[in-house]
């Protein structure tokens, strides 16, 4: 079984960010025919308070911890944010700020964003890609940006085609990476400690 977590940072219900996330998830599934694929969707709006609480207290609520488990245990991630003030939304960033550090290590990630106009499309390359690279994820080369108008356009270069190309690239990456082993939290720190104590002998 392959698990691909879908994190969507849309704030409205219904949300165009969620819509894009669903279409990406559907396209990815189409590129994995005959496979058992689970795609749990995490709507950040639903854990908004828990994310801020975790920032303030330093630990996640039981509910948020389950969400963290879902993300960290997945084989891949589809992450979609609305573009706010030339970047991802604060809630989207906050979620990844409180997610335990090694959760995304070696994880194939498909990034996407929505916005009112296409003028904000570089949010993908200037905000999202560096953040996921920093978190040691493997970011898929083709990202998708959808402006409001894209939900009406058709033909060559249409949103449909871009989604399909991005999904195909992501699935190639996913297959190349193979089944993912979930990184142990604190494994590096404990290894280092054992080494330091070993050196005392």
């Amino acid at each position: 079984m392959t698990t691909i977590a879908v994190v969507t940072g849309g704030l409205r219900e219904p949300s165009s960010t969620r819509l894009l996330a669903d279409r990406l998830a559907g396209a990815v599934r189409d590129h994995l025919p005959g496979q058992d694929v689970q795609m749990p969707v995490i709507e950040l709006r639903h854990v908004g308070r828990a994310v801020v609480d975790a920032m303030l207290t330093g630990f996640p609520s039981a509910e948020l911890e389950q969400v963290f488990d879902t993300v960290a245990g997945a084989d891949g991630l589809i992450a979609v944010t609305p573009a706010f003030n030339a970047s991802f939304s604060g809630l989207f960033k906050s979620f990844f700020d409180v997610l335990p550090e090694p959760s995304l290590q070696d994880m194939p990630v498909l990034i996407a964003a929505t916005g009112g106009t296409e003028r904000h499309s570089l949010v993908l390359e200037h905000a999202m890609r560096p953040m996921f690279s920093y978190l040691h994820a493997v970011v898929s080369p083709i990202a998708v940006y959808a402006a409001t108008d894209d939900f009406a356009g058709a033909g060559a270069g249409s949103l449909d085609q871009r989604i399909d190309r991005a999904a195909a690239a992501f699935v190639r990456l996913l297959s190349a990476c193979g089944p993912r082993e979930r990184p142990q939290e604190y494994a590096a720190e404990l290894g280092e400690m054992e080494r330091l104590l070993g050196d005392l002998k």
Partner: protein
Amino acid sequence: MSQMQFGIFTVGDLTRDPTTGKTLSEHERIKATVEIAKKADEVGLDVFATGEHHNPPFVPSSPTTLLAYIAAQTEHLLLSTSTTLITTNDPVKIAEDFSVLQHLTDGRMDIMLGRGNTGPVYPWFGKDLRAAIPLTVENYALLRAVWDEEIVNWEGKYRSPLQGFTLAPRPLDGIPPFVWHASIRSPEITELAAYYGDGFFANHIFWPASHTQQMVARYRERFAHYGHGTPEQAIVGLGGHVFMRPNSQDAVDEFRPYFDEAPVYGHGPTLEEFTADTPLTVGSPQQVIERTLSFRDYVGDYQRQLFLVDHAGLPLKTVLEQLDLLGEEVVPVLRKEFAIGRPADVPDAPTHAGLVAKAREEGADEAPHDESSSENTDQEASA
């Protein structure tokens, strides 16, 4: 000798009382801390521990000064720290300060080491925050060497070398103070405590019980791995945070404004959420008893329970009332209940007298008054 020790630990914060708008002066807070410790002694608690901080709004920057002053005015109370910064203090100076304290108190003291959680303290004391863990390991190895060896020849990475150094005064009866290693979140500290066979103290406030459970389980397992005994024989201490009134709803109503404004708690999850998710207990003495007894379910039989009772701007009078309730209603029941079903091979809480007796027993075959007990052989070799 008691199986378990019960006491209090203080952060030493100067926080505005949200119900009156009044903030104590540093002088008033230090004097209040002494009153709190004396009261703890009077109501029959076993331990008083102070934090160490080097920035406002905290007052305890010189723990052994405070502890010696309290020791002079108390009878039974064991004086300790929560924590002493092993990263930024010179380990040689720690050894000296606590060695003098040990002699002054006739061994009525021990020490709890931690890394500290205030970043700028490192540069203020000429240290590098990024080296916090290697500093902890090196500094503690040096502290052990200075305590355990008569003549120390030592060279490390973070401090000037020592040639032919001898600690003065040598530890009382040749037995260095018992050491606890404390941590809120760093699992590396469980490894350090286990390696040396020292005590492990889980802060156990602010964070959920599941976290403490994992840390203690890890420490116990590694304690056995390093050959210090069975996992059940590891020495475990826990923090806890309580506020009590005879009537449970009164406790909640009175504590809420303090909770809402407290630097560590306020403006996030509610009091109700915090009491459900973490070991914070606000209610009647009976509720505190039940909650505290439940700690054993997830850490096993343990040796030391410290409560935080004096933070967030609570007035001195209120804190002293908390100590009355602890001493009269809570701790006597806890002592009795925790003793039930406690296996005989679970060690008693560590005391100087206990360590001296143990060293004599173990050293019976060797020279009876050797300066270092046989249990320290590993540590000497490792230093």
